[in-house]
């Protein structure tokens, strides 16, 4: 709420003026490049006929050998009592391990095709000054995640895959969209009109799943130079999970400057917009940063 009242300034403008356009947009551009290249590699098969990676985000095959499988999808088939073939199991371990190492929800911000859609909705909200937002529960996504894993057991069908917008978007682009775009438009409108950051930040079960993975991931985002923060609020305006900023940026006690790894998508947009260069990516072995005293402040004392 606070952020939207103060954010009449354009986030990142100050950084552009003081540190240059590239510094103010670096991770945004890199992220878009990453999203486009992943999709582009998949598109090589149907468009040009060069087979680098086949399939889609649900399951794929790299260079005709390496299997990759959405780990949440693999769990769903197991929940439906299907004895998964080794190929898919290996693929799920590979993808799960990859995101475990690289920061869990890094999938959300660097790969997921819905991210540009909800980012666009977020930009439109800022542009048209849409302030009203239905407050969804923070725990909603975990309820949904539980539902996604329980329903296959109850019905024997991978129910989530009927409406999973992430799989649907990729499948649509690679194998034919049909009426699938309606669901993607619905998510855009939901984020734009009904609930701010409603889908990715509150509902998406895959985001919740990768969040849990990211909880123990070494790649983290840290407000390492938080003593330099000048309360410009730019990071609040761009962060897809702004509730994680205050505990790291303005802690009540000497708490760790690491942004809650469960929710942080490691998008790096906060690094971009911060003119004071407060934020940085860090590689911390799991468990080493929890509730450790703030070294910089204790040094200052």
């Amino acid at each position, binding site marked *: 709420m606070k952020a939207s009242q103060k954010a009449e300034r354009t986030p990142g403008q100050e950084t552009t003026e003081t540190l240059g356009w590239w510094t103010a947009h670096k991770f945004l551009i890199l992220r878009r490049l990453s999203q486009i290249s992943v999709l582009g590699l998949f598109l090589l098969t149907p468009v040009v006929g060069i087979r680098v990676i086949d399939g*889609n985000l*649900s399951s794929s095959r790299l260079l005709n050998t390496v299997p990759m499988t959405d780990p949440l999808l693999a769990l769903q088939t197991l929940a439906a009592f*299907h004895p998964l*073939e080794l190929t898919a199991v290996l693929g799920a371990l590979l993808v799960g391990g990859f995101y475990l190492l690289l920061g869990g929800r890094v999938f959300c911000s660097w790969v997921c095709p819905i991210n540009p859609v909800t980012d666009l909705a977020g930009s439109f909200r800022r542009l048209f000054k849409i302030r009203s937002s239905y407050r969804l529960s923070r*725990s909603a996504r975990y309820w949904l995640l539980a539902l996604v894993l*329980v329903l296959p057991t109850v019905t*024997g069908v991978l*129910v989530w895959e*009927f409406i999973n917008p992430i799989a649907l978007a990729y499948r649509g682009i690679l194998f034919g969209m*049909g009426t699938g775009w309606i669901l993607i438009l619905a998510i855009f409108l939901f984020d734009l009109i009904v609930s701010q950051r409603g889908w990715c930040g509150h509902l998406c079960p895959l985001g919740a799943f990768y969040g849990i993975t990211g909880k123990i991931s070494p790649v983290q985002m840290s407000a390492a130079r938080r003593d330099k923060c000048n309360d410009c609020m730019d990071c609040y305006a761009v962060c897809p999970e702004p509730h994680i900023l205050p505990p790291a940026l303005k802690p009540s006690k000497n708490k760790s400057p690491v942004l809650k790894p469960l929710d942080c998508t490691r998008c790096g947009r906060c690094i971009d917009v911060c003119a004071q260069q407060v934020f940085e990516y860090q590689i911390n072995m799991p468990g080493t940063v929890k509730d450790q005293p703030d070294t910089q402040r204790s040094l200052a004392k």
Partner: protein
Amino acid sequence: MNKTNDKGKAITRRRFLTDTAQAACATGLLGLGLTFIAEKSKVHAAEAMRPPGALPEQGFLAACLRCGLCVRDCPWDTLKLAKPEDPVASGTPYFEARSVPCEMCEDIPCVKACPSGALNPALEDINNARMGVAVLTDRENCLSLQGLRCEVCYRVCPLIDEAITLKRTRNKRTQVHTAFEPYVNPDICTGCGKCEEACVLEETAIRVLPQELAVGQLGKHYRLGWEEEEKAGKALVPDLLNLPDRLPEGTKL
């Protein structure tokens, strides 16, 4: 909203409880809705054929990852992934025999491509595939049954003289000529759909149907006497039963 939060723990606890209750109710409702979709999806549309080696529909819906690798590896572009509005579960592979039937590749690349086992890797001989069963659904308009020399479905069958044979029947119209009736042997037919594609009629008279729609099944408790007799090596009933004859009064056999 922030105000109430500051007032104390009681409000936070109340908020926590209402939030949880709301979330539980919403999840429950959504779950019911999705279960409804799931149940509807179990109906196997007659025009949508699954690739060779596909598990029975119920198991297939639990196993298929909807990745499209079978589609990519199908050299004939037979398979496609279902769009949300298509007759089978969204994202699952299928083909429509009337437009592009299965060419029955000997190396079965679609089954090899499947990472999850939804297409059963135990299928090694394509002739053992049971994608469906061809059924002569319209005996009135079938040219062969009208006594004309068509038999196209028989000629194109990859298992000619096994899966489809020609049964000689009397031409009902002329009463003197022979009609060559295409006869499907459901134990051998793979359901590739070549016959359906080839049927020369405007609307095909022969169709491949999913197994569960086309094949009848004897009640599990039911035994065929002659089969049991063969198994046992003798009749299971010792003698012919002699039941009392009921005749109108005053009559005799």
